[in-house]
């Protein structure tokens, strides 16, 4: 029974239409941000792309010929599923972080983004997968022929001169290529997920599973009566079941072959380009791996469950193993179930279509990125590059599919399906050592990977591909029997005389032995390049990488590149829209300086980002080459940061050298307190350790100038003689005012013309100004370092180190300033004390002099008794009294100069001198006061002092008392027999107020027992605790009480009474008192 071509083609087209709709739906949902494919079940179904027509048809074929070993192709991947959570997850994480586009990109990225390695892997993949694609095309065309009953019988007009089967597979190839372009190459970016493609694959996986199980159930339970029935019938029929249900014979079913098959399939599940693409590139979430780990083996179990019944059923039903490859299709067809046959055909068509689409997309990506891009990057980027690249990729898809088509046409029918698939498996397993080693072995290097893969591939070609070509009759040779040039030991299928094993084991053993051997040997013997080392970290330590802990940049740009330059570069490869979108994503909240650039330390990150973005479209190796060549075009390049410590360091933060310098600096600080020595020694240290040509310390002066305090190195007048006020538009001022390190790693890039000229004159290549400041405080100065030879030495860790030295210096300066301030304070205190002592001594002397100016003893005059006393309040005072004995009289004067200063004492001395002179020439108190006022007025006026004075002339013979008063306290006169005191008063102004003053002179007759008490205001104005004055009344009463006593006793009584009254309160004013008692 056959089906009509219209029905089959129509059903196939309807099915394709369904796939297209599903794909567009998925793409639209993705655009809306509601992905339908981003879930673990779709992920599992898409991984099922592993099961191609090779499984769908070939498993049955193999089961029918060699038996149970067909299941090994699926048991191997089941075993590896144990490792997915570690291995696959690691690969996915690395790929996502580095925008990996394919397995070639992955491996070449790991080995220093090697273009050679990428190209090699791509080449091997194309050669190795070509048979596999051919297999799919062959399956589609064969099944089409079978289901339509060899259509050229139906449609002879289309037949022409060629068998129609050529047309069938040609159309299949053509359609598959179109699908590939539609689903997989609409955009250039290959690291992006293709949701439409994945959705279509998922639908296909469902269909092929359903179709196969339907056929399986039909054969097992429709044609036969279950598993047991099939096995027993076969046994009953006398067929030798043994070789199908057991194994272990020499050759195809040997134990070694069994082992090789498991190994091959274990490698294939991840290493086949389409598997890598679906499992890694199209993975949307690492969590999906968990479900896939057990669900994918379950899927394989289900689809394989009925392989054995179909195979054996087919043998029973047809009586032959010929055509066993197509039992899935022929059994329903022959038993008259055309719809089931159509379903089976569509299932096989699904299996082929999915595989060819994804494989061609994956390989065309590799083809573009690793074979074409190395050539493209040699040309200057043009605006039409994005368009050209995407079309090249589409072309690649056609190329890959039609290479398979060509292979199918040439090699054709020789091997059964399973064998063709195994050739491809054996090709891709050559990537395993480089891939696994690259993930876990740090030392694995590019030379090792290239050597291993070349060796492995050569052996594969010689032991597997060549025999397949020979066996197909494409190349007539006796090489398989006799070896090349008759050298038997080099026979491809028994290489180096290793006979007795099957060709798979032979190929696998020798290829992997040489591959791994070459990889290990070269990796151990040869060194890794700088770039490789960087990549090793990204791969091996992908889970340990913490961005915060990432080591400091060890590379810098010799000439800064702006963001716009990078954007323009990206535009030329991935189009303007995408370039702008990605750069704005990247910039985010990053700091941009005034010129629209990023900081020098940010630039390498930006470069990496640009590389990564480009890598998503053209692969890491090409992206690296594009950026490098662009940089060299603009005259910039990545240079190694100058190594201050003469050895490679991953992390400078706490290197031993760093600690050494800090330690030495601390020693310098602690050795002395002399700031100048500290500064000099510190500069010596910095200059010696870091090979600077000039180092300077400038400190801010009181006049707000940055003054050079110390420098070491060559005398460069232009730099050293610069004591300037800090201004923000200079590097120096920026460091000081901004309190941040201001530096230039290459003075070629100096944007400040003024300093540019000066630095050029001195030949300075790089410099840095470090503010001398303690943490969180304003700077005290600037530490400047200059180099004439080294470019690019100022890295964040180095600047941090210099800043830490500057911080220590700031501490020393602060301590120095504190010590100075304390010294000054102490000195001032000492001076003040000294001054005070001197003044005290002077005052004491003054006091002695002053007291000596007062009469030692009152004059001895008959009939009169005198007593006098002066008690100064301060050391010197302004009180004065005196006696001037004359022939018939005696003059008594008491005076008080305002204030208690030395000035008052001097005025008092002058008054005494003047008075002594005047007393001789003048007789009346009135005249004397008048003259005194006149003489002293100028001096008193100048000194802003004045004098109160009471002047008395007592005539001894007549006991008459004449007196005049210049504003002094009225003396008290106690008259014998009177109960109250008389206050002697006369008109007169205080001396020193006016030049001309009239003084009234009064007279009074004294009698025996009268007591005259002259005093200064210290007595009457003495205060008690309550603040009350002593007053004249109290004095008068006291006189009355003690008037009988001698003058001296009266005086002492008054002083005692006043002292008692004032109690604890110290003497407010000088006290002078003169007592005159008439005897």
């Amino acid at each position, binding site marked *: 029974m056959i089906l009509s071509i219209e029905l089959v083609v129509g059903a196939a087209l309807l099915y394709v239409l369904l796939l297209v709709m599903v794909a567009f739906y998925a793409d639209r949902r993705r655009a809306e941000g509601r992905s339908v494919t981003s879930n673990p079940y779709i992920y599992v179904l898409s991984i099922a792309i592993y099961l191609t027509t090779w499984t769908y048809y070939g498993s049955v074929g193999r089961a029918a010929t060699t038996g*149970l070993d067909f*299941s*090994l192709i699926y*048991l191997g991947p*089941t*075993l*590896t*599923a*144990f*490792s997915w*959570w*570690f291995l696959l997850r690691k690969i996915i994480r690395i790929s996502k972080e580095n925008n990996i586009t394919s397995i070639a990109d992955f491996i070449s990225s790991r080995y220093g983004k090697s273009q050679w390695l990428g190209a090699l892997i791509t080449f091997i993949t194309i050669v190795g997968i070509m048979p596999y694609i051919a297999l799919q095309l062959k399956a589609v065309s064969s099944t089409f022929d079978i289901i339509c009953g060899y259509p050229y019988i139906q449609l002879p007009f289309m037949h022409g001169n060629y068998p129609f089967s050529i047309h069938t597979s040609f159309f299949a190839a053509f359609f598959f290529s179109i699908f590939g372009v539609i689903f997989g190459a609409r955009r250039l970016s290959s690291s992006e997920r293709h949701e439409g493609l994945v959705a279509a694959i998922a639908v296909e996986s469902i269909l092929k599973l359903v179709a196969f199980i339907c056929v399986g159930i039909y054969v097992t339970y429709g044609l036969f009566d279950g*598993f*047991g*029935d099939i*096995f*027993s019938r076969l046994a009953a029929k006398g067929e030798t*079941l*043994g070789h199908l*249900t*057991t*194994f*272990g014979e020499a050759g195809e079913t040997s*134990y070694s072959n*069994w*082992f090789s098959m*498991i190994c091959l399939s274990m490698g294939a599940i991840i290493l086949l380009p389409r598997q890598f693409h679906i499992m890694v590139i199209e993975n949307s979430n690492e969590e999906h791996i*968990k*479900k896939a*780990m*057990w669900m994918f*083996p*379950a899927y394989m*179990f289900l689809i394989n*469950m009925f392989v*054995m019944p179909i195979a054996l059923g087919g043998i029973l039903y047809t009586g032959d193993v010929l055509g066993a490859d197509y039992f899935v299709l022929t059994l329903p067809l022959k038993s008259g179930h055309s719809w089931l046959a159509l379903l089976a055909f569509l299932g096989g068509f699904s299996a082929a279509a999915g595989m060819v689409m994804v494989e061609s997309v994956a390989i065309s990506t590799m083809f573009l990125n690793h074979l074409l891009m190395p050539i493209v990057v040699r040309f200057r980027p043009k605006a039409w590059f994005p368009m050209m690249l995407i079309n090249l990729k589409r072309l690649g898809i056609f190329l890959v599919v039609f290479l398979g088509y060509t292979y199918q046409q040439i090699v054709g029918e020789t091997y059964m399906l399973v064998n063709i698939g195994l050739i491809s498996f054996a090709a891709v397993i050559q990537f395993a050592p480089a891939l696994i080693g690259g993930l876990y072995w740090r030392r694995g290097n590019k030379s090792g990977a290239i050597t291993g893969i070349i060796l492995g591939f050569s052996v594969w070609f010689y032991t597997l591909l060549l025999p397949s070509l020979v066996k197909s009759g494409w190349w007539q040779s006796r090489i398989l029997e006799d070896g090349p040039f008759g050298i038997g030991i080099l026979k491809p299928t028994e290489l180096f005389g290793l006979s007795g094993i099957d060709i798979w084991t032979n190929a696998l053993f020798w290829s992997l032995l040489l591959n791994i051997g070459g990889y290990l040997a070269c990796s151990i013997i040869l060194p890794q390049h700088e770039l490789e080392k960087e990549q090793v970290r990204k791969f091996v330590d992908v889970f340990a990488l913490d961005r915060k802990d990432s080591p400091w940049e060890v590379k810098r740009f010799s000439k800064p590149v702006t963001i716009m330059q990078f954007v323009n570069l990206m535009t030329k490869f991935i189009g303007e829209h995408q370039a702008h979108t990605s750069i704005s994503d990247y910039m985010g909240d990053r700091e941009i300086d005034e010129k629209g650039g990023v900081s020098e330390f940010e630039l390498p990150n930006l470069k990496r980002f640009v590389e990564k973005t480009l890598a998503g479209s053209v692969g890491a190796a090409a992206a690296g080459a594009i950026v490098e060549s662009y940089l060299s075009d603009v005259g910039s390049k990545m240079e190694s940061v100058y190594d201050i410590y003469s050895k490679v360091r991953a992390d400078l933060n706490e290197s031993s050298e760093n600690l050494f310098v800090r330690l030495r600096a601390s020693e310098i600080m602690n050795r002395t307190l002399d700031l100048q020595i500290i500064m000099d020694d510190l500069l010596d240290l910095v200059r010696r350790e870091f090979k600077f040509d000039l180092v300077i310390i400038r400190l801010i002066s009181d006049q707000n100038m940055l003054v050079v305090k110390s420098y070491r190195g060559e005398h460069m007048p232009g730099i050293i003689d610069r004591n300037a006020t800090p201004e923000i538009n200079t590097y120096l001022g920026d460091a000081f005012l901004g309190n941040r390190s201001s530096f230039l790693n290459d003075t070629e890039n100096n944007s400040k013309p003024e300093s540019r000229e000066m630095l050029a004159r001195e030949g300075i290549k790089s410099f840095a100004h470090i503010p001398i400041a303690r943490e969180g405080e304003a700077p005290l100065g600037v530490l400047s370092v200059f180099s004439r030879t080294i470019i690019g030495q100022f890295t964040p860790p180095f600047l941090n180190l210099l800043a830490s030295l500057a911080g220590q210096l700031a501490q020393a300066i602060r301590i120095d300033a504190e010590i100075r301030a304390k010294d000054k304070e102490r000195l001032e205190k000492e001076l003040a004390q000294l001054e005070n002592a001197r003044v005290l001594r002077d005052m004491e002397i003054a006091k002695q002099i002053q007291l000596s100016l007062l009469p030692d003893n009152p004059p001895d005059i008959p009939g009169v008794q005198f007593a006098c006393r002066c008690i100064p309040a301060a050391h010197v005072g302004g009180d004065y009294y005196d006696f001037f004995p004359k022939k018939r009289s005696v003059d008594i004067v008491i005076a008080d100069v305002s204030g208690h200063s030395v000035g008052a004492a001097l005025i008092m001395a002058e008054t005494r001198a003047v008075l002594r002179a005047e007393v001789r020439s003048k007789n009346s108190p009135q005249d004397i006061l008048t003259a005194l006022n006149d003489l002293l007025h100028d001096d008193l006026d100048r000194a802003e002092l004045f004098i109160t004075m009471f002047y008395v002339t007592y005539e001894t013979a007549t006991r008459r008392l004449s007196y005049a008063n210049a504003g002094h306290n009225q003396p008290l006169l106690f008259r014998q027999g009177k109960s109250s005191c008389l206050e002697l008063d006369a008109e007169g102004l205080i001396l020193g107020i006016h030049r001309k003053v009239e003084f009234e002179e009064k007279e009074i007759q004294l009698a025996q027992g009268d007591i005259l008490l002259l005093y200064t205001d210290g007595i009457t104005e003495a205060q008690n605790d309550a603040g009350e004055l002593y007053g004249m009344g109290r004095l008068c009463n006291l006189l009355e009480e003690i008037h009988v006593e001698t003058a001296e006793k009266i005086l002492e009584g008054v002083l005692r009474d006043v002292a008692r009254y004032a109690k604890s309160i110290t003497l407010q004013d000088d006290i002078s008192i003169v007592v005159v008692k008439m005897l």
Partner: protein
Amino acid sequence: MWLKLKLLVLKRLRLRESWVIFFILGMIMMNYPFITIFNKPLKAYNIPLLFIYLQIGWLVSIFVIYLYTKAIELPEDKDDGGEDH
């Protein structure tokens, strides 16, 4: 009791060693010489022994992997001795 046992099993499965052991165990059980135990022209219920062995072994593997994925999902536990994934 069963819950406790299950938890204990899952915790052990968290260890990286576990999957290596299962992987090696699988390789051993599918290869010479172990497989010769089942590689005999014997039948059980009319079905060849090796066929049954492979099918059952396959199902058991899937189940162990399933348990293993459950173990990964277990919250972090100090009892693991730190040597987890």
